[in-house]
């Protein structure tokens, strides 16, 4: 399959000069979110800042620019965007493009915030990605929130009236499940069924929705794409590191309980984002302070715990985090206060993860609840001495044996907790706990699925 273009010439890839200089003040930030406060950006303001989307007029022309920019997915997997677009464009005719705004992770707010505040950046990115793979069937998979969906519908109507979008966008409703944003679950839902993950042979980019090649891209990724198309690869790379360029949205959970979404450059030290101690310093025997962090959860509920001392020396980059068993993921960073029990928090979240299993694969729906039950015991007094051995055995049994990565991610989370909270576990084995009966810290939804209908 050939397409008409010579070797990419970057100077030709910006179709129209940007109306205004690229976003971001002296620090280059923020890019995706407006400079002042969380005021949602309406269409006229968006057009005033960025102009209309710079369509190339032909498929694939945008892809070399994305490759040059080094943009990777911001949904958690960090897959190179240019490679994904090329794969979908190569996979066949009539591809489908779906922006993934499901954000099933309870600790993450960045996608909902982005869609609320800067929907037009996401929608621009959706159109540009669709053009790049030659698609005229576009969807936006959105968290089930009536207000958010109404706002998006209004934004789409505005764009339609102004003739901005090349392809009409269908809003697809995502059930409030942890796995709703999983690629094959998204495709299943977009096909009209429930959001069950599927066995991925063939992969979604080859045969996804309605049997057509489907590009699934996180909404934040699409927003970055929309800016790169205007301001170029060099601009995008002006923040971040050489291997991990650009900025990303993070959901920060501070030890004092505050929770907000920030945009930051990749490579930022974690201690610049999270307050890891209360400034008074000292690890003295004054007892655990509520605002001192004992550990940091990096990457969400499929991520990894790091002891605070280790996290204090880390940067927000996979190059720094992977050797420690963590990864940037979808940008969730949570500082666990010193006056909580890390084992109890882990047990709560693992129970939630187990109940969020789709119940389709034996190892998952058998193994995760058992791990969660024993973690509950570990969080209590005088746990059975076989508890740790059982958890480790089951973790090894479920890893890699599900159709999706739910068991793998849960195991990563649990193993990192066993490592990071080793001292706490030993205390528990002697019948003590640094924070018995402490109130919960990590956010979890009020209800999980109880019937199959909750997956639609």
């Amino acid at each position, binding site marked *: 399959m050939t397409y008409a273009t010579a070797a990419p010439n970057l100077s030709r890839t910006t179709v129209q000069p940007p109306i205004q200089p690229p976003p971001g003040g002296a620090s280059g930030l923020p890019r995706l979110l407006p400079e002042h406060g969380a005021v949602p950006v309406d269409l006229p303001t968006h057009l005033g800042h960025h102009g209309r989307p710079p369509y190339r007029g032909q498929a694939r022309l945008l892809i070399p620019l994305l490759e040059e920019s080094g943009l990777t997915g911001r949904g958690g997997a960090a897959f190179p965007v240019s490679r994904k677009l090329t794969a979908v464009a190569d996979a066949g005719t009539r591809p489908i493009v779906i922006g993934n705004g499901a954000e099933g992770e309870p600790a993450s707010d960045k996608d909902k915030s982005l869609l609320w505040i800067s929907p037009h950046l996401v929608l621009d990115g959706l159109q540009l990605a669709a053009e790049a793979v030659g698609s005229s069937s576009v969807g936006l998979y959105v968290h089930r929130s009536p207000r958010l969906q109404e706002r998006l519908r209004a934004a789409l109507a505005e764009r339609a009236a102004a003739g901005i979008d090349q392809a009409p966008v269908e809003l697809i409703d995502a059930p409030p499940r942890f796995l709703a944003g999983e690629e094959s679950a998204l495709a299943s839902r977009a096909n009209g069924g429930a959001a069950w993950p599927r*066995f991925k042979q063939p992969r979604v980019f080859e045969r996804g929705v309605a049997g057509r090649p489907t590009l699934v891209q996180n909404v934040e990724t699409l927003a970055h794409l929309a800016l790169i198309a205007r301001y170029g690869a060099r601009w995008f790379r002006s923040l971040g590191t050489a291997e991990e360029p650009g900025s990303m949205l993070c959901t920060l959970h501070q030890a004092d309980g505050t929770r907000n979404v920030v945009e930051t450059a990749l490579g930022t030290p974690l201690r610049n984002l999270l307050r890891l101690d209360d400034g008074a310093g000292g690890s003295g025997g004054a007892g655990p302070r509520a605002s001192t962090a004992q550990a940091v959860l990096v990457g969400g509920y499929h991520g990894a715990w790091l002891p605070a001392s280790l996290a204090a020396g880390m940067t927000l980059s996979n190059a720094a985090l992977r050797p420690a068993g963590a990864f940037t993921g979808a940008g969730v960073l949570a500082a666990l206060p010193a006056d909580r029990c890390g084992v109890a928090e882990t047990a709560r979240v693992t129970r939630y993860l187990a109940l969020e299993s789709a119940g389709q694969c034996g190892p998952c729906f058998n193994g995760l609840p058992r791990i969660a039950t024993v973690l509950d015991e570990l969080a209590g007094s005088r746990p059975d001495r076989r508890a740790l051995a059982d958890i480790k055995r089951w973790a090894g049994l479920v890893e890699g044996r599900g159709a999706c990565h739910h068991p793998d991610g849960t195991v990563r989370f649990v193993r990192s907790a066993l490592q990071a909270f080793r001292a706490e576990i030993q205390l528990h084995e002697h019948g003590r706990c640094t924070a018995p009966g402490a109130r919960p810290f990590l956010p979890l939804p009020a209800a999980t699925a109880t019937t199959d209908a909750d997956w639609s």
Partner: protein
Amino acid sequence: MKKQLRVDPIACTGHGLCAELLPELITLDEWGYPILAGQPVPRGLDREARRAVTDCPALALKLYRPS
């Protein structure tokens, strides 16, 4: 090119025939679901592997050629 076994974990309901027919490559976990050895099917077990694939009541076991 040697073939590999793969199980569709959603289709698999733990009948356990595969482990009976091909104990060299497949064992069952404590819940009755198959654990695949992960290595390619040796030539001598080709026939048994094909039989395990056809006999699986859930059609969950598959043979494929890794590319």
